[in-house]
């Protein structure tokens, strides 16, 4: 990152249109594209995915061999036809007919083999790709949230797409390269078999091509990669211009940006021209070598025919082979790159597949039934994402069945962590979290999830209809249930006002709804889930007063008859709670009802008297008593761990 800034700074352009502080698009060197050619460990991992298809693949390899065989045979048949079938008389006539029969058989086999081979290889490679992806996706559903917290979604997506595709390419080409190798050796063998002398002379150009390609490949690859990268740079800049267009226009940056973009587009053009040069430089070399081989054939072969040492048909067969023998070399050297790429991708795939699953159901885990009492209890809980820095320290409290408890405290005090522990997103380091009287580690995760509904700070909607979003995974919820829930939380009216009511598709993460409305939809979702316990992280962003009012009412509906653990930011919510727990630095500072805490004259009462709109706004002076020093840094730092959800 530092290097990137340096180039930005040193690159001061003084032509008036390219100011010193302006850049468009972002550029980060992409991940390692090529690995070692062969890594036994990775190949073994990949083989595990290929294994189920091994019989099919064996068949495909057989078909490839047959296919190659017919390719090799056809020039021989032609040779036979020319040498024996072109004379006059019945003998030659039948020889020609025989050759034609052989030819017909060869092309029939060729047809069948190519069908079987391509079809099996193509489909199997697709199957393996989807299998690997399914395995990874399934694995990501189970890995610990701390891994997900640390990893960008975009990065995972490029595993699930780009890397998986590299594996597919690898599989497809590996089987075909078996054919290439056989073809290459077959041609060499047959040429030598037909005529050693002529074979050796014409084949002499092969090593030359090999050597040239070995020198060419690494350089060409650099040029290809540079072109590829310049594409993503230019496209990145375009994407930025599209996403940021409103800012660009309101700040009048069009001209500057255009000049900067022109630089990138020109660089792209240059890189592509250079790559094209590298790609094309091989053509005359291959053609010249082919020309040399053919010239040798004409001169030497012709002389041998003259001396009666060679049949004309052999010369024709040679012609066919010469035209073919550069193809396998080309694809084999390409295969080298494909393998390297596959190893690099395979490495990254196995990294994802190997992420440990920290939280699993105990072997004797029991189901948490709906008949449990609905209590939540923390007993001496110590927990931190980094064990050396505990976020919760010896925290103990109990939420009784049907009670609503408001958790409050400055940012970084551990509220969100407490909420995550109740749902066993993480395991505690010490102490116990009990739900319905059971240690959460003794319960199945699925049953725990059914009994605890959770509303996150940042409402997250999936692409799909409003109905699907509210129903979510409660498959047995009827349309009536969904509508009833929406009515209960006050979302029904605006949903009905949408173009297709409950059938309206939610675009990119519910973009067409306002934040407050999305919040209400997520409330309805929690209501449909109908869990005994509700864990809720109240939104901090200020929502307009009208929606706010709806939300407050909805919250009351939601909490009716349920145990509620609410991370509260709004005074109204806090006041309505049965009990308030004040956290600071992972410790419980005080608890009690609003009235009790006001009376006791502790931190809460002093904060309350300063009448802040939200308790997250607690300024340094106010929090100093309970949370000296650290509060400042925490309050400003965008604290990933403390944010209920991440987008």
């Amino acid at each position: 990152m530092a290097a990137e800034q340096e180039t930005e700074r040193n690159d001061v352009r003084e032509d008036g249109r390219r100011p010193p502080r302006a850049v468009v698009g972002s550029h980060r060197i992409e991940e390692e594209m090529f690995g070692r050619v062969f890594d036994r460990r990775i190949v073994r991992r990949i083989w595990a995915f290929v294994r189920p298809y091994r019989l099919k693949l064996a068949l495909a390899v057989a078909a490839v061999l047959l296919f190659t065989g017919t390719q090799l045979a056809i020039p021989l048949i032609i040779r036979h036809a020319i040498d024996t079938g072109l004379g006059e008389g019945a003998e030659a006539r039948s020889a020609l007919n025989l050759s034609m029969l052989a030819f017909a058989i060869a092309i029939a086999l060729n047809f069948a083999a190519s069908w079987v081979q391509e079809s099996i290889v193509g489909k199997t490679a697709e199957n393996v790709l989807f299998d690997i992806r399914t395995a990874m996706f399934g694995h990501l559903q189970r890995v610990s949230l701390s891994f997900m917290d640390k990893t960008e979604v975009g990065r995972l997506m490029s595993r699930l797409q780009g890397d998986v595709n590299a594996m597919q390419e690898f599989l497809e080409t590996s089987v075909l390269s078996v054919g290439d190798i056989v073809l290459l050796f077959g041609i060499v063998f047959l040429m030598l078999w037909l005529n050693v002398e002529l074979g050796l002379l014409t084949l002499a150009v092969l090593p030359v091509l090999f050597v040239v390609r070995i020198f060419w490949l690494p350089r060409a690859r650099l040029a290809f990669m540079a072109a590829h990268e310049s594409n993503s740079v230019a496209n990145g800049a375009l994407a930025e211009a599209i996403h940021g267009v409103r800012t660009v226009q309101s700040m009048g940056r069009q001209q500057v940006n255009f000049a900067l973009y022109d630089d990138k587009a020109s660089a792209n053009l240059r890189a592509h021209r250079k790559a094209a040069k590298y790609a094309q430089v091989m053509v005359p070399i291959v053609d010249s070598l082919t020309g040399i081989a053919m010239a040798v054939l004409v001169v030497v072969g012709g002389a041998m025919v003259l001396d009666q040492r060679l049949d004309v048909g052999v010369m024709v067969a040679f012609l066919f082979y010469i035209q073919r023998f550069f193809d396998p070399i080309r694809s084999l050297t390409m295969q080298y790159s494909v393998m390297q790429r596959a190893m690099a991708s395979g490495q990254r795939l196995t990294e994802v597949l190997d992420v440990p699953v920290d939280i699993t159901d105990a072997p004797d885990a029991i189901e948490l039934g709906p008949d449990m009492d609905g209590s939540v209890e923390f007993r001496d809980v110590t927990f931190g994402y980094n064990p050396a820095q505990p976020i919760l320290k010896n925290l103990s409290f109990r939420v009784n069945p049907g009670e609503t408890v408001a958790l409050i405290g400055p940012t970084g005090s551990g509220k969100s962590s407490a909420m995550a522990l109740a749902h066993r997103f993480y395991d505690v380091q010490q102490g116990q979290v009990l739900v319905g009287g059971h240690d959460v580690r003794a319960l199945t995760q699925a049953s725990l999830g059914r009994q605890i509904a959770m509303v996150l700070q940042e409402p997250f909607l999936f692409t799909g209809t409003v109905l699907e979003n509210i129903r979510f995974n409660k498959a047995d919820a009827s349309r009536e249930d969904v509508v009833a829930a929406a009515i209960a939380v006050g979302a029904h009216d605006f949903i009905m006002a949408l173009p297709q009511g409950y059938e309206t598709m939610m675009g990119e993460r519910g973009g067409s709804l306002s934040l407050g409305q999305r919040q209400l939809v997520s409330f309805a979702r929690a209501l449909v889930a109908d869990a005994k316990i509700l864990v809720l992280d109240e939104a901090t962003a200020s929502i307009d007063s009208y929606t706010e009012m709806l939300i407050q009412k909805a919250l009351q509906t939601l909490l009716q008859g349920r145990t509620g653990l609410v991370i509260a930011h709004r005074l109204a919510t806090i006041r309505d709670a049965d009990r308030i727990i004040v956290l600071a630095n992972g410790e419980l500072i005080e608890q009690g009802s609003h009235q009790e805490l006001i009376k006791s004259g502790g931190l809460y009462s002093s904060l309350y008297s300063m009448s802040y709109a939200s308790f997250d706004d607690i300024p340094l002076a106010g929090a100093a008593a309970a949370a000296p020093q650290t509060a400042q840094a925490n309050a400003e730092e965008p604290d990933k761990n403390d944010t209920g959800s991440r987008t």
Partner: protein
Amino acid sequence: MSAAPQDRLPDIAELMRHTSVTGWRDGLGTIARVVRIDMQSRWAVTIALVSTLVAASMQLVIPRLLGRAIDQTQLLVSGGAEETAARSALLATALLVLLVSVLRGIFTTLQNYFSESVGHHTGYVLRLAYYEKIQNLSFGFHDRVHSGDLITLGMLDLEGVRMFFSTGLVRIVLLSILIGIGGYMLLSTDLLLGLMALSFVPFVAWRSSVTQLRLRGTWLELQERLSVLSRVMEENLGGIRVVRAFAAQPHEMQKFAVASERALQLAHQRVDIRVRNTSAMTLSFFMAMGLVLWVGGSKVATGQITVGTLASFLTFMTILQMPVRQLGLLVNSFARTSTCGARIFAMLDLELAVQNAPDAHDLVVTDGVLRFENVDFSYPGADGRPALRNISFEARRGETIGLIGPPGSGKTTIAHLIPRFYDVTGGCISIDGQDIRKATLQSLRRAVAVVQQDVFLFTTSLENNIAYGDPWAKTDRIERASGSAQLHRYIMGLPSGYRTVVGERGASLSGGQRQRMSIARTLMLNPAVLVFDDSTAAVDANTERQIRDEIREHASERVTIIVAHRLSSLMHSDRILFVEKGEIVESGTHDELLALNGRYRALYDLQVRPEASGGKG
């Protein structure tokens, strides 16, 4: 006046989704336009086409030469020629073969390189034009077109058009020479044998065209299904906490499996289409070859043709095979170019809904008076449903105007009209008596700055982001602006300070910090009219107060307009306008409005004493 270009927008949205081949005439028009752009690289085009001619001719000569060589040896063997003469003829042929091969290689290289080069230049020209267009299309356009579609257009569709020269135009020349001249040569040598040798051409050409078109259709469909799949994955990973919170993993796996299965099925189908096609093409080729061999063999036997002729027929067929198979790609290239090109050109031809008037002049700010006179407005595509009706007010330099009202009432719309993000549909907005539609956009937007609700941070350093509107700015000005936005202390606490990279790929900022960035960025512009469009919603109350104090210091130099739903943000304004359903229903100072006992009062009660009204509401 500006209604026309806006009305065309739905067509664009329609066009973007349009995936099938457009009509023939439009298609040809599009292709002609692509060719005109290609022709900008006149020299490269000439070299590429000439090289194609030469390379193709050389290609045709080789089988002839080889045939001749074989005949020469045959002749010799049958004793029809003098030995030394024959040997030297053989040598001459060999040298010719070598020469022709080398030439073919060189000209093929030239052909490929220059046609690629032309294509890339076309890509470059279109890239720039597209970028320029995107940057200047009005908000009304961007509101209604999905950004993902625009990116696809700028990447994939542009790529499709770029490839046209090498995959379409050059290939046509190559194929017509090979098939035309080569075919003529074969047919004139031996009509029957020539017909047989060429018999595979129509079949393969037809198969490969049909297949390519089908593959193209299914490719688009596959992309669609894959994008559904990746959306399922992306949403799952992005919303993993929701998934876990509801123990919805099985539900999500099910969703994934369905999407995955749909994509896999189509992928298999595509393999089938491809396999059926390639196998059949190869078979038909070999069948033609077998025929030639059989019939040709008999002809050689009866002395009608020489072995060399037969060999040259066979060699020619192998040479012809590849280009004919690629005929499908040619068809595909035309189809692709006409649809992709149509989309791109439709975009490039869009008239800008908001642009400089022909007689536009730079805005001259003197007294700094902003005036709304009976302004009406309706959003493009809203079928004339009014968003604002009859809005009139005036604000002088030094004044602060607050805009408040329920969501959707039109507050933000008012804010967006001042810098002409949209044009009014009735009435007039003026600054110092100059209709803003008569001012150049550059000068207007230098005078009017809006702190936006949604903050977009560019992937670059904090300082570059703050200096976005004034990239020549000195460091001290940047620090002052970030100080006013209450960001300086935070930034100085970061390890790399102002050089910390933020944005999509940089460090993440909280919502409040992002809004403060946006404030700092706008303050840098030092505008005559400063609009805060609900831009402190995520900033905590205390910090907001500090920002307000800072801004008030400079308020005497400009008109300040504050749009907010938090009363405390704007109750100190000189005048507060209460907007409801696109109209100003109450206006006055805080105290006047409270005394009015109307809507403002109700809102005040709701916000300041929620417990009182919460129960009632």
